[in-house]
């Protein structure tokens, strides 16, 4: 095994690559992927060929398709004689509502009757579907054209079939609610009655498909119930943890509490003698944090037996390569280093020193935020079955397509021998962009002659996360004689895994680089080496960096003596060509920022006189292609108890697909952000995560949740972008700015509970 430093580097390169991937929003004229072409080709090959678009194990589907009972139109759509339309959602459902939104997009172009659409999860086959990940709020923007073309293409084939049968011109046929009509001859037919004939029609050239304009939408933009809600509320099996297979056994896996430790030996005889235990063995793993790290697997008859035996496990760890990271040390050293601005800046625009010398006012401030765990409620798990030379898996992952090659590598078989079933995911938040637990299940399954469900404990989950990195920002800003933002200097103290570049999620985000438009700007960084793995955490980077930047922006606007909203709008509209995005696919728009700020101020009642002890704070962000402003109104009592009266969030993410789902994301992300700002922090000492369960990690509970979060959408004429992340980053800054307005105390460190604040019921 290579040393831990290079392991981290490999893991980091992997994560960085996938983060670049999930962040890259396609341009409006997104080009066709191989997958898209592939499924249309398959559609032309007839029913038998279409089966190829689905995974090897789905014999039921193959039989149906060949038998012609349900007619597949393409890899996304299947139409039954009774006019039921089954639509396959290609991306993981992690709570962002994608299974519903994807259905609505396809059904819109297909002109399907939504009441008779059944949504199913597609299995994992990137050759057919293209990207199948859920991260970076990119599922909608990346699939937008592909899904619309799938719907429109199938509709064109249905129309062609009807035109042929009725001997009329296709242009005279109209489609609505899964029925085609030729008005002139008063003829109509259901999609179900035409599906078999339609599948034999030539596959239309994608360029010939005329997609709808917004004015023609019947489905997009309305309110929808989640398509799986009936199953969720009745407790029917949906999640990875719910998978049950005949003859299945259960596994736990125990890794070194300090990342990088290796197994020397363990009490194997004692463990094998435990009640319900079938086997126990050590794995060397691949030594890569994002794959399989060394540990001990325990195989048992049920989960409880595996967990009980795990408690009895005594491992002699080789700690020579293990992490000794300490967050208290990082924090203390960062503060000492902050004032030493590095000699070599990463970015230098204008003349910062001259601006400081000429400034009417300068402001200095130091901001800090901690490491954080993802802690989704479904602990990591994967069910794996090694049979007939095939590794078959049932996985609650956000990145199944990225998992495929890793599983193949761990199993030592070609990717064609991997069959991966996507399950519903009990919370993503970025944790499940990494497929480490799936790789572990793969390695374990190869040693077990049965299907095996690897189940992490909650303590495993806290102890072996890919954490949101802490960060430390020393700012200095200048206000010129006209009260405008003139200079911004930022010393960012962050982390590196490979000694060269920032660890995953530890870089200053491009979003912030576009957002802070000071004509004189200088940034530099100092990096601490880090062995604890870091990762993408809901709105990576932005989720904490926006707190620091937008809080400091409020300090600057106060120094300017101008109204905060006016100051923000002035600052974002400065023309600083050196700070404009070089990548033309980046949709950052000062006008869209201005519009959300203005609407947020109006909806929040900006400028109202509030009573003593009350305050209104406002902040904005550009994150994950969304333009967002948030306002928090609150009061603070003498015991630093905060009563959040109201949260307003205004977003421009282009047209909304599912209004109910988008409101849910806006409210949920705001609540998550409030929860995180108030209480969430992971401490690491001697390489070991100190927080082991929810009792030490106070996620917000219902009594403390705001009674109202008002979400507003500016549905601008832009391609739609994702909703999972944009409503997170600006909230903490709006909260801190409101606390300042109420109390005069500036929040420069998270979480707020470390400063004595709590939420009132």
């Amino acid at each position: 095994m290579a040393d831990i430093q290079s392991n981290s580097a490999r893991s980091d390169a992997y994560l960085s690559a996938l983060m670049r991937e999930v962040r890259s929003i396609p341009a409006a004229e997104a080009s066709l992927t191989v997958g898209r072409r592939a499924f249309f080709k398959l559609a032309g090959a007839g029913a038998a060929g279409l089966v190829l678009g689905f995974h090897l194990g789905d014999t039921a589907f193959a039989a149906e398709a060949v038998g012609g009972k349900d007619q597949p139109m393409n890899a996304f759509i299947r139409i039954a004689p009774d006019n039921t339309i089954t639509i396959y959602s290609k991306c993981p459902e992690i709570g962002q509502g994608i299974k519903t939104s994807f259905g609505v997009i396809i059904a819109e172009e297909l002109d399907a009757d939504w009441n008779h659409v059944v949504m199913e999860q597609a299995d994992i086959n990137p050759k057919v579907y293209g990207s199948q990940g859920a991260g970076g709020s990119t599922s909608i923007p990346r699939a937008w054209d592909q899904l619309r073309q799938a719907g429109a293409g199938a509709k064109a084939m249905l129309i062609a079939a009807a035109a042929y049968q009725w001997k009329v011109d296709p242009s005279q046929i109209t489609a609505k609610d899964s029925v085609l009509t030729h008005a002139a001859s008063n003829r109509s037919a259901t999609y179900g009655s035409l599906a078999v004939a339609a599948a034999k029609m030539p596959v239309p050239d994608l360029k010939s498909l005329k997609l709808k304009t917004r004015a023609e939408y019947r489905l997009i933009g309305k309110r929808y119930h989640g398509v799986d809600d009936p199953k969720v509320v009745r407790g029917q099996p949906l999640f990875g943890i719910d998978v049950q297979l005949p003859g299945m056994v259960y596994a736990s896996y125990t890794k070194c509490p300090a990342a990088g430790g290796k197994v020397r030996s363990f009490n194997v005889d004692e463990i094998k003698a435990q009640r319900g235990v079938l086997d126990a063995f050590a794995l060397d793993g691949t030594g890569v944090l994002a794959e399989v790290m060394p540990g001990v697997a325990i195989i048992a008859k049920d989960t409880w037996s595996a967990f009980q035996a795990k408690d009895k496990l005594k491992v002699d760890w080789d700690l020579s390569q293990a992490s000794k990271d300490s967050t208290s040390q990082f924090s203390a050293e960062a503060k000492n280093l902050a004032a030493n601005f590095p000699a070599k800046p990463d970015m230098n625009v204008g003349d910062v020193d001259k601006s400081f010398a000429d400034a009417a006012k300068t402001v200095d401030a130091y901001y800090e935020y901690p490491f954080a765990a993802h802690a989704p409620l479904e602990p990591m798990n994967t069910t794996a079955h090694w049979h007939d030379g095939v590794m078959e898996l049932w996985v609650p992952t956000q990145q199944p397509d990225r998992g495929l090659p890793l599983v193949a590598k761990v199993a030592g078989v070609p990717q064609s021998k991997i069959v991966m079933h996507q399950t519903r995911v009990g919370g993503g938040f970025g944790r499940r962009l990494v497929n480490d637990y799936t790789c572990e299940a793969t390695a374990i399954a190869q040693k077990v002659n049965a299907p095996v469900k690897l189940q992490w404990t909650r303590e495993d989950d806290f102890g072996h996360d890919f954490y949101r990195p802490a960060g430390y920002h020393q700012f200095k800003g200048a206000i010129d004689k006209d009260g405008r933002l003139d200079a911004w200097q930022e010393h960012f103290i962050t982390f590196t895994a490979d000694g060269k570049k920032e660890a995953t999620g530890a870089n200053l985000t491009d979003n912030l680089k576009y957002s802070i438009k000071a004509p004189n700007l200088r940034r530099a960084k100092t990096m601490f080496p880090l062995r604890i793995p870091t990762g993408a955490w809901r709105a990576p980077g932005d989720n904490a960096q926006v707190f620091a930047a937008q809080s400091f922006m409020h300090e600057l606007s106060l120094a300017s003596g101008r109204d905060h909203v006016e100051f923000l709008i002035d600052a974002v509209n400065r023309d600083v060509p050196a700070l404009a995005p070089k990548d033309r696919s980046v949709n950052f728009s000062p006008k869209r920022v201005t519009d959300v700020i203005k609407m947020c101020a109006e909806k929040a009642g900006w400028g109202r006189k509030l009573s003593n002890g009350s305050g209104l704070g406002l902040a904005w962000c550009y994150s994950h292609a969304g333009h967002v402003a948030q306002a928090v109104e609150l009061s603070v009592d003498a015991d630093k108890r905060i009563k959040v009266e109201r949260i307003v969030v205004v977003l421009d993410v282009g047209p909304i697909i599912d209004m109910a789902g988008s409101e849910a994301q806006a409210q949920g992300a705001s609540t998550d952000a409030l929860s995180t700002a108030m209480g969430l922090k992971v401490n690491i000492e001697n390489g070991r995560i100190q927080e082991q369960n929810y009792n030490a990690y106070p996620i917000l509970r219902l009594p403390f949740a705001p009674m109202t979060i008002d979400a507003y959408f500016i549905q601008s004429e832009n391609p739609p972008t994702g909703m999972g992340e944009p409503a997170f980053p600006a909230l903490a800054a709006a909260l801190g700015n409101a606390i300042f307005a109420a109390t005069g105390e500036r929040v420069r460190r998270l979480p707020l509970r470390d400063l004595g604040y709590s939420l009132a019921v």
Partner: protein
Amino acid sequence: MLTLTINGQSRDVDVPEDMPLLWVLRDHLNLVGTKYGCGIAQCGVCTVHVGGKPVRSCQLAVGDVGTRAVVTIEGVGDTPNGARVQQAWMEGSVPQCGYCQAGQIMSATALLDSTPYPDDSDIDAAMAGNLCRCGTYIRIRRAIKNAATKSV
């Protein structure tokens, strides 16, 4: 061999008496709607009704259930309040990832069983033990009130 009454049915299970009810339901009775989240009664996703009261099944040894009736998310819809709560949850589009919602629904149903018209402080008290990582609390509160309104 233990005999349990679950969702109105008598079920025999051959498990150690110290096994938490949660794992008996999930691994031995194929009732996987009840979820594992923390194992220390901090998150509430494992909430079931035992003898009409909401309990965290990760902390209740199966040997201590005795003759008390167990109701899980799979069976609660057969009770009037359970059906109302499930309906309100669907109408209000409460779930996001959905993993906590079985536990939320079990706690909410137990609340309506004891307090047909709960006010906000009743809801706070009954629901404080159920975490939702997605932050669906606003819709949970509203759905409970809507379900209560539909009580006869």
